[in-house]
């Protein structure tokens, strides 16, 4: 049996024989999808608004000014035509669009004005909040200018998440979390365990190169990570009807890149951690916490304080979540997501190289 194959066999045995950990790893994606699916809730700041002003009259300009001067909103542009709305939302340049009809001033005066709010439903919680902000501004403006009677009707249309299920939003984040846990935390612990028991020293004093040892050890976790990813997707689809609108293949390829990034991070941690406890703490604080809190998964990046906003850029999960949201919820492909995927690939290359280098031929 080749050394690599026997490594995979041995590591798989370790995984299969630790029944408790295996049960936790297999059931956790299911439990988390259910938990998050029913419990998630988010707050929003800095909503980017695109105004489609077909009227270009005093009233519409005044309303636009009112939007622009509202604290939680940011005006990203005023355009004349409806066709520009969808590209802006797809590209993530705007969160919400307000459509003012050409006869806005006349109908407002008559009390029959109707405006349309279009928001990016891919981010359902965010969309609902953003829409309510805009609605409030419009109603307040109408009250100030029309004597208080409710003369504005707002109609909202969600574009890319027609079911308006807020559950859809967390599945990408959850995927990132589960993959980080299995690839980074579990490999870091498993390598640190070999250090603790002295077996790593014996393996080092063998003809195997450190890279062979590491690759042999992490390979089975790659398989486990994919089982977990598919479980999470499956449960999300069956229980909450969350679909994968775009290419499943692209989703799995992106996930593979993300798993490689996480494995490399796990290896980097274990190369420095002397024991399992240290490895676990480092992985929890250094990887899982940012994946949860700094990736836009639970707290939207837009509502983070300004000084913190650049940080998510160095968290791999941020980019992975953007990619998964794009593929799953918007159904977009490489043409739109190439930048995010490129960032992930670059991270994978750099971290894998660092991970391989961190595993010395010697102990120190």
């Amino acid at each position, binding site marked *: *049996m*080749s*050394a690599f*194959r*026997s490594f995979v066999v*041995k590591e798989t*045995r*370790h995984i299969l*024989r*630790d029944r408790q950990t295996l049960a936790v790893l297999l059931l956790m994606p299911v439990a988390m999808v259910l938990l998050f699916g029913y419990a998630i809730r988010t707050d929003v700041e800095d909503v980017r608004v695109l105004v489609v002003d077909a009227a270009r009259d005093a009233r519409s300009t005044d309303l636009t000014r009112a939007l622009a001067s509202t604290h939680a909103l940011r005006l990203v542009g005023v355009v004349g035509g409806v066709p520009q709305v969808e590209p802006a939302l797809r590209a993530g340049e705007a969160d919400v669009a307000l459509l003012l009809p050409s006869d806005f001033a006349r109908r407002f005066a008559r009390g029959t004005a109707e405006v349309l709010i279009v928001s990016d439903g891919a981010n359902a919680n965010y969309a609902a909040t953003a829409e309510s902000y805009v609605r409030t501004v419009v109603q307040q403006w109408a009250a100030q200018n029309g004597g208080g009677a409710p003369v504005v009707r707002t109609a909202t249309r969600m574009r890319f998440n027609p079911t308006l299920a807020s559950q859809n939003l967390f599945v990408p984040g959850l995927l990132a979390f589960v993959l980080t846990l299995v690839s980074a935390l579990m490999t870091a612990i498993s390598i640190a365990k070999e250090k603790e*028991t*002295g*077996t790593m*020293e*014996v*393996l*080092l*004093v*063998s*003809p*195997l190169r450190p890279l062979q040892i590491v690759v042999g050890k992490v390979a089975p976790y790659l398989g486990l990570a994919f089982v977990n990813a598919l479980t999470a997707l499956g449960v999300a689809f069956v229980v909450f009807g969350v679909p994968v609108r775009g290419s499943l293949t692209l989703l799995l390829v992106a996930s593979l890149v993300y798993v490689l990034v996480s494995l490399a991070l796990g290896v980097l941690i274990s190369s420095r951690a002397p024991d399992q406890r240290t490895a676990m703490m480092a992985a929890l604080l250094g990887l899982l916490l940012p994946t949860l809190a700094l990736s836009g998964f639970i707290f939207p990046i837009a509502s983070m304080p300004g000084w913190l906003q650049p940080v998510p850029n160095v968290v791999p999960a941020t980019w992975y979540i953007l990619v998964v949201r794009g593929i799953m919820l918007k159904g977009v492909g490489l043409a739109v997501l190439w930048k995010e995927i490129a960032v992930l690939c670059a991270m994978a290359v750099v971290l894998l190289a660092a991970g391989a280098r961190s595993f010395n*031929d*010697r*102990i*120190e």
Partner: protein
Amino acid sequence: MTDAPASVQVNGLVKRYDEAVALDGVSLAVEPGELFGVIGPDGAGKSTLFRILVTVILPDAGAASVDGLDVVDDYLEIRRRVGYMPGRFSLYPDLTVRENLEFFASVFGTSVEAEYDVIAPIYSQIEPFDDRRAGALSGGMKQKLALSCALVHRPRVLILDEPTTGVDAVSRAEFWDMLGELKRGGLTTLVSTPYMDEAARCDRIALLQTGRLLRAPDTPEAVARSFRAPLVRVRATGERAALLGTLRALDGVARAEVFGEWVHVTGAGEDAGALALRMQRALEGQGWSEVVAEPVAPSVEDVFMALMSDPDPTAEVNHG
């Protein structure tokens, strides 16, 4: 010493960790086929020395070779040729006996079948438990499995770091029997232990303390004989703490140390018989009963203690 090249050659090895000096100029040579013991307490530098020899750490100064290969330049080749058991080595408890053995064989690119003759003397004793998980083995059987795993690639030199620490007396005795058997097969073995009474099981021993050899390596008998001062063992009925105090206050007593149920008294400038007689009379004169004082042959432990306060200057000599 023979003309054959040494199996392990160590010349002036130095290793520092921050301010602490782990090895402070250690030199020794292990002959082919020898069972060589490095004896010293925790922190003496035993593990550091062995880790340099198995090429997992680099020395700060000095040189060392294993089977004629330099530990720095030829480290990859050395790794093929040594069998190593680190101090806290504990195998994979969740794998069976057979799975552990097969894994370590495959790591070295071989198989249990191909190497069966090498490991048979030891492995055959645990073979009936092939399907038992290593974690469920008794201490003695774990030891046999660990040794089988270290031997499965036909190493030319076996390096064992404290293999008997934390092992019960029966298993320890068996382990030394196994090492004796391997030696008869011609294997060179370098073994470390903190237990002085295991010195007698080695061909030659080196006494290591705070990173230095206390004296040049030699046979346990020669090391014991090198104790020059008169030595007497004393026993009497009563509190040992009081007996020690009494003996240390007597004239011509360089040191008095408990040694099991006895107290070993080192004198100076008289022969052991005269010293024994003097101790006998002095104790009886002070009212101690059932006094026994008699000359005793020094042990390795006596030498170790004597050298701890007064190291032998010849210890730094290079052997090569």
